[in-house]
């Protein structure tokens, strides 16, 4: 077995040193009836080549996004990740290190986290960020719990244009806590409707920008109304590339920003692992969940970095911790920060504009097609269209034609008749004009 270095001679010598005769003597505390007498009923070990072959066979049964015109988004986006990123994150010193609990021999991970936190604070327009959460959706749930701790109030109002799975996750995360989530039905919520729901019990309002249907909103007035009631504005961003072109949540008055960071540095990988971003104001850091890295000095006065504010965390506070989270998205944050450093201000802004420009291009092409309606007034790189036919059926037919044409909204709102004919269409820098023409042409054919 290629991963197991002990030889039969080693094992015999070691058993002798321990003073037992056979390996099962070391398992003597296991109840006799529970110690298996034979191997479990699974295949025996395989060569590396055989494993490789099996996985290729499974991979070949899928349709990779990069092999066809591709327009899916809805919280996970296909962007081009520079080769440097994957090369660097595979360095064993990053890949095979543990959580940086021993800062003297973990400065690589820690400095990268410190740079990551700075980048996240900058793009969200906030003062500080933590070292990441599992993903955007779980970060959203945590933000609601955090808003309760910070405001000492329990009612969280969730916008109906928040990603429906983020709503589900938040509902689940608050199921057995004191929080009372108030969930609006799906719709493009106008800020005034949300403002009218705020009362003295409100801990926060959770909105998304661009919202789930792709619309861009200004939440400044909402923030003002919330602050007047000593409540918090939580802004969710599922497409972080938008922050290179759209006004930042911080500039609108957000108190907590959570985001899905997958778009930068991380591939689609069927939904995970991704990287949740959580940024906030300096005065709220002690109510923040998750790991955080901070600056300090060593015994010689040299600058260094450590994990800090751990008195919020489960390994110290146990049942009184701000969260049960005990990890971050380590390697995904590294991929994020490397990609962001490659982009820099210039590249990040250009990437955002390029995404928007391509989306505008496709929206115009679709609008010009008879029978297809683009429903958005504003959007970044994703918008909702309506067809004169069942959208899920259309998407299936497109897949048969080797086009992944977007996400039918009925996949996420299965019982909502209003969503039946609608598709969420995303356009990133990876889409070519030829891809767009193939989609438009195929859709025209389908609705004829």
């Amino acid at each position, binding site marked *: 077995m290629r991963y197991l270095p002990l030889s039969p001679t080693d094992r015999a010598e070691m058993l002798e040193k321990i003073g037992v005769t056979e390996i099962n003597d070391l398992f003597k505390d296991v109840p006799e009836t529970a110690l298996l007498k034979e191997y479990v009923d699974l295949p025996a070990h395989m060569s590396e080549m055989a494993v490789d072959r099996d996985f290729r066979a499974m991979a070949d049964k899928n349709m990779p996004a990069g092999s066809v015109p591709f327009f899916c988004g809805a919280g996970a986006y296909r962007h081009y990740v520079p080769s440097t990123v994957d090369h660097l994150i595979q360095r064993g010193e990053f890949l095979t290190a543990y959580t940086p609990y021993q800062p003297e021999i973990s400065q690589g991970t820690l400095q990268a986290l410190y740079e990551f936190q700075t980048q996240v604070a900058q793009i969200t327009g906030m003062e500080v960020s933590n070292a990441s959460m599992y993903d955007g959706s779980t970060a959203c749930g945590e933000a609601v719990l955090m808003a309760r701790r910070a405001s000492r109030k329990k009612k969280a109002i969730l916008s109906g244009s928040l990603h429906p799975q983020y709503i589900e996750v938040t509902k689940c995360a608050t199921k057995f806590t004191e929080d009372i989530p108030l969930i609006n039905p799906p719709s493009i919520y106008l800020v005034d409707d949300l403002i009218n729901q705020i009362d003295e019990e409100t801990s926060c309002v959770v909105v998304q920008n661009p919202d789930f249907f792709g619309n861009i909103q200004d939440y400044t007035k909402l923030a003002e109304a919330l602050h007047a009631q000593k409540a918090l504005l939580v802004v969710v961003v599922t497409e972080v590339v938008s922050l290179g072109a759209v006004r930042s949540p911080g500039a609108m008055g957000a108190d907590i920003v959570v985001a899905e960071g997958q778009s930068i540095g991380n591939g689609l990988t069927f939904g995970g692992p991704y990287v949740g971003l959580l940024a906030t104001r300096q005065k709220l850091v002690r109510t923040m969940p998750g790991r955080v890295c901070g600056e300090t000095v060593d015994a010689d006065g040299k600058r260094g970095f450590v994990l*800090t504010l751990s008195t919020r965390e489960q390994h*110290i506070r146990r049942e009184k911790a701000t969260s*049960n989270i005990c990890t971050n998205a380590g390697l995904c944050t590294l991929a994020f920060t490397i990609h962001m450093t490659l982009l820099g201000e210039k590249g990040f802004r250009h990437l955002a504009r390029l995404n928007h420009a391509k989306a505008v291009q496709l929206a115009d092409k679709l609008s010009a097609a008879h029978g297809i309606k683009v429903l958005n007034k504003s959007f970044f790189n994703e918008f909702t269209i309506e067809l004169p036919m069942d959208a899920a059926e259309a998407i299936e037919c497109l*897949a048969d034609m080797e086009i992944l044409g977007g996400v039918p909204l009925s996949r996420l709102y299965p019982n909502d008749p209003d969503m039946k004919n609608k598709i969420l269409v995303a356009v990133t820098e990876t889409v070519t004009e030829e891809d767009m023409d193939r989609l438009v042409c195929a859709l025209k054919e389908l609705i004829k």
Partner: protein
Amino acid sequence: MMNKQGRPTGLNTAANLSPNSFTTHTGNRGLEQDELLIYEIGDTQRTGVDLEDLPVFESRLGGITRDNEIGLAGLSEPEVMRHYTRLSRKNYAIDMGLYPLGSCTMKHNPRINEKVARLPGLADIHPLQPISTVQGALELMDRLAHWLKTLTGMPAVAMSPKAGAHGELCGLMAIRAALDKRGENRTIVLAPESAHGTNPATAALCGYKVKSIPANKAGRVDLRALKDALGPDVAAIMLTNPNTCGLFERDIIDIADAVHAAGGYFYCDGANFNAIVGKVRPGDLGVDAMHINLHKTFSTPHGGGGPGAGPVVLSEALAPFAPVPYVIHGKDGFEMVEHVTGGGESFGRMTAFHGQMGMNIRALAFMMSHGSDGLARVAEDSVLNANYVMASLQDIMTLSFEGPCMHECLFDDRFLEGTGVTTLDFAKAMIDEGYHPMTMYFPLVVHGAMLIEPTESESKQSVDQFIGALRHLVTQAKSGNSALFTGAPYLAPLKRLDETLAARNPVLRWRKED
């Protein structure tokens, strides 16, 4: 000896300089290079990407634009390579040496796992593309589920939890949902003193009060105390097995029976599954729910702190309450249930999309590489290595509990009494010997705990060298050479860091100086 090109290789003035007094112009020390922050190297004008030119277009952003500078620093590609390569060299890693962090299972991370995880058919698929176009992905999830169920002897598994603690939450939510359905309002979760901090934190998130169960003299749950604590208000016990002292809970079946007899559920923290994989099935021990840290037992890389993955195996009684989504076998292939339907009992959704697919891929590759025979050997070799370490150190370090241990062995700081050396000092001196320290001050049931887990990946030579290093350090401590410890590490990129300063005045980001 004379080196033909250069100088004599004997002593010379430079070589006589002590490492501490030797200063350099750059601050670098040979291969040990200082590295500034990206914000101190780069600027907002520099970039490491070339993107295509913008077409002519009319903005549709609704006027809600970002006009002020963000302040992001950019670097060119060669600078990026160098920055992160230099940073990487300041990290300790499994690839560099034995990583004896107890309860963390720092084992070898095979690279075939990384390779197959990057196949476009697995890495480049969207979570919401039509189910007909991701049949291979669902097959993979289904296969991993089959392995996990078979290895644990449990009938069901929830695949979406994103990490161990997220898995704990999944298990306890299933328990709470089952109890709610029974119409019972139980309020207490029992956990031993030695439990991971995540256990009580998770119980609190599910609205439970945590009651601590003391350990007995053998480092195990005090069965009598447990039985006394059981009653109609107890929802569940959360128990790690093998436990955090590295010991198998001998009374595990009695514990499970007692909990069940009192109407509660048995949540097993599977953090230490590595010790028993392929040898013992938790389902045979009466477990109702257990998370499996794929990043421990099944070797998905720790990645400097994540991402992890924490699938949860469930008993028949809890299976109906599992979260969405889950994969089922349909008539035309695999299907995925993504919504809680009207009559469904699922407690809900824990994450957007389907969980940590990238980790699933790596874990399955690890399992298939080992097979049922290799996995049993994993458990055996990990237990053998730990017992060998214990047997080789117990004469000079103080063993907390009598063995045999499972995959990790626990010492406490009694052997350091009177030396002026603390567990922390001792651990930091290990860094100078080229090792990552063991887990310190956990579990809390012994004073100055040192929990050593060598894993099955270590050869006998490697373990022998490690033992030799520890014996040397113990001898030094006992002989009064406390300076070797209190100032340690001496040879790491940085000296000991001031964690109090960091917490008192949190500086969590770089800022431009005014």
